[in-house]
């Protein structure tokens, strides 16, 4: 392998933003026909590096070499013309247009007078679609396709040019197992044609299944490249976070209180069905499952954001109907939502106002907001959660992800809820803040809060939970106590045990 000419080399790339050195002397070499994994924590610089490669950012130092020629990328289109193709994580499709128009977006074949050459367009597209073995044709409107099929359209874009290197950015996030198999076939196919592939993913299992080499970034620096066959998860994790991950189980067993929240036979249309569980005071219940298993939707129902189609919710043994978040808050339920920037914070508001937002009606001096008590609340939770901000006047949009998340948590702790639901509490947060938040969740439980933690990260669920509810496809598969649970039986539960549950290809 080593005597081949690399299809793509990044050499000594440096990229700084005001105050941050986002990439510091990063190098990466992709050989023809290899699948090269790029790994690193969120914020390690993976996406910045890819943006440099795609010409969205210009590097301050270093160079990009495609084949044997140094290249200056000025736009994604130019990168594509040089044979570097990106498959984006977020779908970047125009739903109203046909599959063919999306695949050839920006490069529609033309006839005279700027007319679209539909015939060529459809012929070429159908040839590509055939390779992908999908069951829709070039004229289908993209908006009518399932998410997974839309992802396939995205992938089809890579096949329109004579690609030298293809970058897959978390391509499997929304794919079913069957669709993953097709995707991996496509990758193998590209590989056999001598295309180099950069594969960005957090899913170790995939990494070990399809990649040849793994390069790791941490804090914008290059930490090394390993041969996949000669390494293991632990070694990679250590490179990524610079120390061993604390995978210890939650050991503390304090006295549990009464049942704070009980749910019986709750269903919400096709989102989830017949869900029953209970949470006691002083207990942390983890909800684990794949994206789309219905966990977030249960939380949203408990918070009054969805109307259940059947079932009952009991708070302190009393049956309640929760119509709105306002209602939920009155009843002592708090939700730290999944999407911090979209649902958790008003980014253009300052830290204090964000933190006191749910209770601003109660903080009054005469007709006005009592700013003194607001600042007192802010100061209290800033100290308790160790929020790093120059002051309460700072706009939350200017804070780091970890500090933003702490503002959201502080906002809900200051409501003194009976039931606290946290959805993906550490998504996109650096490792340090991560363990702080884990400790905080444990501490809250010992203080008698009933806590529900929804997470897609197994170590996190194992670490913080007293009990773990495993969900698959809208149903609770099994509830584990922390003594019963092992990584294996948990994984089995969330993938629908095994066997015949491959989702139908839509």
């Amino acid at each position, binding site marked *: 392998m080593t005597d081949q000419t690399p299809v793509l080399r990044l050499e000594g790339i440096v990229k700084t933003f005001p105050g941050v050195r986002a990439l510091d002397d990063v190098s990466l070499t992709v050989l023809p026909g290899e699948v090269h994994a790029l790994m690193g924590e969120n914020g390690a610089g993976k996406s910045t590096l890819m943006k440099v490669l795609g010409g969205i950012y210009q590097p301050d130092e270093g160079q990009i070499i495609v084949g044997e020629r140094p290249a200056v990328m000025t736009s994604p289109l*130019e990168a594509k013309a040089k044979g570097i193709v990106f498959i984006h994580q977020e779908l*970047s499709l*125009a739903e109203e247009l046909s599959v063919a128009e999306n695949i050839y*977006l920006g490069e529609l074949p033309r006839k005279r007078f700027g007319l*679209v050459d539909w015939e060529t367009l459809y012929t070429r597209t159908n040839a590509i679609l055939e390779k992908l073995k999908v069951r829709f044709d070039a004229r289908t409107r993209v908006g009518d396709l399932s998410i997974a099929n839309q992802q396939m359209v995205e992938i089809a874009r890579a096949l329109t040019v004579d690609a030298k290197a293809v970058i897959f950015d978390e391509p499997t996030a929304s794919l079913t197992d069957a669709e993953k198999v097709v995707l991996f076939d496509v990758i193998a196919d590209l590989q056999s044609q001598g295309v180099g592939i950069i594969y960005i993913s957090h899913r170790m299992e995939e990494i070990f299944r399809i990649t040849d080499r793994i390069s790791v970034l941490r804090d914008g620096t290059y930490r090394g490249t390993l041969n996949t066959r000669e390494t293991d998860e632990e070694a990679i994790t250590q490179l990524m976070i610079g120390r061993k991950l604390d995978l210890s189980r939650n050991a503390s067993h304090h006295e549990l209180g009464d049942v704070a929240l009980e749910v019986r036979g709750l269903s919400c249309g096709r989102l989830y069905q017949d869900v029953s569980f209970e949470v006691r005071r002083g207990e942390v219940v983890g909800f684990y499952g794949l994206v789309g298993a219905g966990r977030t939707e249960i939380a949203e129902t408990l918070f009054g954001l969805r*109307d259940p189609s059947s079932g009952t919710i009991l708070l302190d043994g009393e049956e309640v109907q929760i119509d709105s978040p306002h209602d939920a808050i009155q009843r002592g339920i708090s939700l730290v939502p999944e999407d911090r920037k979209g649902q958790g914070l008003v980014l253009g508001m300052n830290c204090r106002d964000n933190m006191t937002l749910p209770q601003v009606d109660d903080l009054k001096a005469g007709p006005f907001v009592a700013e003194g008590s607001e600042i007192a609340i802010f100061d209290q939770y800033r100290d308790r959660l160790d929020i790093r901000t120059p002051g309460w006047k700072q706009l939350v949009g200017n804070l780091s992800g970890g500090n933003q998340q702490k503002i959201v948590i502080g906002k809900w702790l200051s409501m003194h809820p009976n039931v606290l639901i946290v959805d993906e509490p550490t998504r996109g947060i650096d490792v340090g803040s991560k363990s702080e938040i884990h400790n905080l969740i444990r501490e809250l439980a010992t203080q008698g809060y009933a806590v529900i933690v929804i997470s897609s990260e197994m170590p996190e669920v194992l670490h913080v939970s007293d009990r773990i509810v495993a969900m698959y496809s809208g149903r609770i598969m099994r509830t584990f106590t922390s003594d019963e649970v092992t990584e294996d039986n948990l994984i089995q539960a969330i993938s629908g045990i095994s066997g015949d549950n491959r989702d139908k290809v839509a």
Partner: protein
Amino acid sequence: MQPGTLSTLLKRGAIWGFIVLELIFFTVAGEFLSLSEKAFMDVDNMLLLFKQSAPIGIIAMGMTIVMVNGNIDLSVGATYAISAIVLLDSMTWPLFAGLGDGVIPVAWALALLTGTLLGALNGLIVWKTGVDAFIVTLGSMLGYRGLVFMYNGEQPTSHLNWTLVDFAEAQWLGLHTATWFLLIATAAIWFLMNRTVHGRNVYAIGDNRTAVVNAGIRVGPHMMINFMIIGFLAALSAVVFYSESGSVNPNDGELYELWVITAVVLGGTKLTGGSGSIISTFGGVLAIQLLRKGLAHIGADTSTVNLVIGLILIAVLFLDRQLNIKGKEELKV
């Protein structure tokens, strides 16, 4: 049948269903209420309806393409007025005195050029400053109107050229000149949006701007071209109308933007861009004109027309939302 097809069909056909309903209603109601002896569904009456739809209709075609692009243009009324003044006034310029009736194409060209340039100015500002098109054209709506007044103060600008009037009042194959212009504008923009690379890119830009930028499509020139098209069409609309009337008041074209946007929205174009059809816009234009004429036919006055159109616009919006709702499972935010 794929899911969503039914609601799509319903939405595509809705405007034509609405037109049929209007026709039935006014025909029946006309029998009982009509002040005139003529039936509503009279051929002459319908031909007139097409002709009267032209000024709003021609601009609405341009508005559709601008709105599909994800922008909006509030300055069309003022552009319309300026172009009209250029049209009428240029025919009196001593420079062209020797041309005789040859001045007509020159005046037309000047008017159309004016509209196109004003549109280009809007487009250029939106493109280069990054200020929202709503604000840019809100500003130029005031600014262009100011230019109208600066031209001739508060006096009307008049010039009647009888050759021109004859041309404008002519009927070819039974249709009025203005109707022909409306049909040609509709066909041309339809062709532009459905058959050309520019048109398809415009849909893509309105639909998913990030994707388009990533695909290397230059958004700015496309936006600018669309503003030039709507400026051109506003001028064309003025050319068609004022060739016949021969006199323009500085307030002419006020509130046109509202009528045009109403027609486009009735036709189902999404406010956020990415979706809309020229044929449906044509339906929207007809529906509005039919409503105006129909209400007049059954003896209602302007006030009722305003009231009814306003409420229908809101009702359409409401129905559209109900059709798009995903059922009870939806997140209540």
